[in-house]
């Protein structure tokens, strides 16, 4: 029998009489042991990767309240949300009209002003002050800043220009300034996040 040659000398050939398995028992043990160690290894890698994610104290800073009562039309303030600058702007009727006059289909990131604000509160434009190109803070929130060719915000780093609805109109940035989630607590106060 062909199987006889596979029996190590001095061992009982009985278990081999039925058939030779492929993989053999020794291969099976080998594969099983390495697989078990591999699964264990992956289980150790997971926390090593996950420790890089924002920790609980960083995530805890994820809401910000803003008092709108002191912001006159045409003014804006900068506050922080998740340690990033947050632009809160009270648009003038002229700025709203300019934003609504744009053909939305012609935009790089098509959105209307109404989609970027809350119903009935179109004058309150709340965005992150982080250029969607590489993260610089655009100019235009402070009085006297260069507001760029479209009268909104202008990023001095690589020349991205945003319009009065903070939509990207010119330059390398791919997206409009990000509008975070927020709710009106009253007519003069919002909670962001």
């Amino acid at each position, binding site marked *: 029998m062909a199987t006889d040659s596979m029996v190590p000398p001095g061992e009982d050939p009985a278990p081999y009489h039925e058939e030779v398995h492929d993989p053999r028992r020794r291969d099976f043990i080998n594969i099983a042991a390495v697989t078990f160690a591999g699964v264990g290894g992956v289980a150790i890698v997971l926390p090593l990767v996950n420790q*890089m*994610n*924002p*920790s609980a104290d*960083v995530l805890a800073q994820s809401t910000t309240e803003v008092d709108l009562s002191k912001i006159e039309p045409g003014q804006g303030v*900068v506050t*922080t949300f*998740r*340690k*990033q*600058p947050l632009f809160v702007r009270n648009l003038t009727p002229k700025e709203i009209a300019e934003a609504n006059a744009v053909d939305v289909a012609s935009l*790089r990131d098509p959105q209307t002003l109404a989609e970027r604000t809350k119903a009935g509160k179109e004058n309150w434009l709340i965005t992150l002050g*982080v250029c969607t*190109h*590489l*993260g*610089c*803070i655009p100019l235009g929130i402070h009085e006297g800043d260069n507001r760029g060719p479209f009268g909104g915000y202008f990023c*001095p*780093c*690589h*020349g991205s220009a945003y319009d009065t609805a903070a939509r990207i109109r010119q*330059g*390398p*940035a*791919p997206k409009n300034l990000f509008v975070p989630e927020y709710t009106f607590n009253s007519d003069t106060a919002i909670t962001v996040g």
Partner: protein
Amino acid sequence: MSFPWAKHYEPKQPLMRWLDEKLPLPRLVYGAIGAGYPVPRNLNYFWNFGVLAGLALVLQIVTGVTLAMHYASYSGGAFASVESIMRDVNAGWFLRYAHANGASMFLLVVYIHIGRGLYYGSYKAPREMVWLLGVVIFLLMMATAFMGYVLPWGQMSFWGAQVITGFFSAIPLVGESIRIWLLGGFAPDNAALNRFFSLHYLLPFVIAGVIILHIWALHIPGSNNPTGVDVKGEQDTVPFHPYYTAKDGVGVGVFALIFAALIFFSPNLLGHPDNYIEANPLSTPAHIVPEWYFLPFYAILKSFTADFILPAKLWGVLAMFGSILLLFFLPWLDTSPVRSANYRPKLRIFLVVLLADVLLLGYVGGAEASAKNVILGQIGAAYYFAHFLIILPWISRSEKPVELPNSITEAVLAKHGGTSPAHTALKTDDDLTTKPALAN
């Protein structure tokens, strides 16, 4: 490994013989950078820069480890701890200026080292692996230098971290999550600073490890030389020690003079004043620029301003990383069997143009993003890629090389007015040339 005529290590002292039996470390050093490594006899001063790069790494590790004894990697105290190093720590100003300018010196000598490889065809067979490992070292150096620049937590540190991690947000769909994962937050802060410090301390030792592989891979075929002609026999080589240890010593002296001039006379020449302002997440500096050694790559990043199938931002990031990853393919893009550009008249011209192009990109990378500069950058970036992807494959097929010397020795002796090795060797009293010739 190495040539058959390489000298063998023979310890004479009993202690060294004992050590050689237990742990042959001196034997390894003797064969790697001692008299046991035969090197082409015609190397010029461009061959100093590998040793200089190794020296720069050692200096960075020594100054870096000592600086880490005084530095606090905490976003609320990092800037103040660097100021305290400058003002209060004994000789702290010296260590910090040596470390900051040491990074510039390291990148400078590495750029010359890479340029040497490009000109003399050191990336070609049989040294492809040496080149590939070199590109890996370069990538590790760039990562290390970037993270080191973040540590003082000044304005340029912070906004540099913001912009560079912003590259990853260009990746479609998962980009923003990757960026937040890398930073450990939504903007650079304490978590990012700490992990950058940890990795900045680790990576130099990884670099040292890859350097060992780089030298190991080099010692299998042996060093290239200015003619690019293979070593034919013992007369073509001299032992590394004392011949090139001495020649490298000259280079080390010049290196030290320039380094000292930077540290002691203009330590902030290559830095940015904005980095002496503490990081402020609510104020972007008017003009964000990376350190000088990244400017050409930054110019390539900035030169994409319009969407074309993919967003402009993604193009910029792909092109910038592509400009370095391209170097991995260089040994197979250049198919000419002639190594040294000394014998390749067309390549020689285009390499000078490439150097001018990289300098132009460096200028554009540091300049304001005006319309004129953007166009200059676009031309420069396009030419950079054209050089490697079009011009180089084209000239390696069409070019007619100048006649190569038959051997290194023939080239050396022709330079000194001789015609045949045997004839000239007898006339010169230079030990270096006569000994191998007489031995044959």
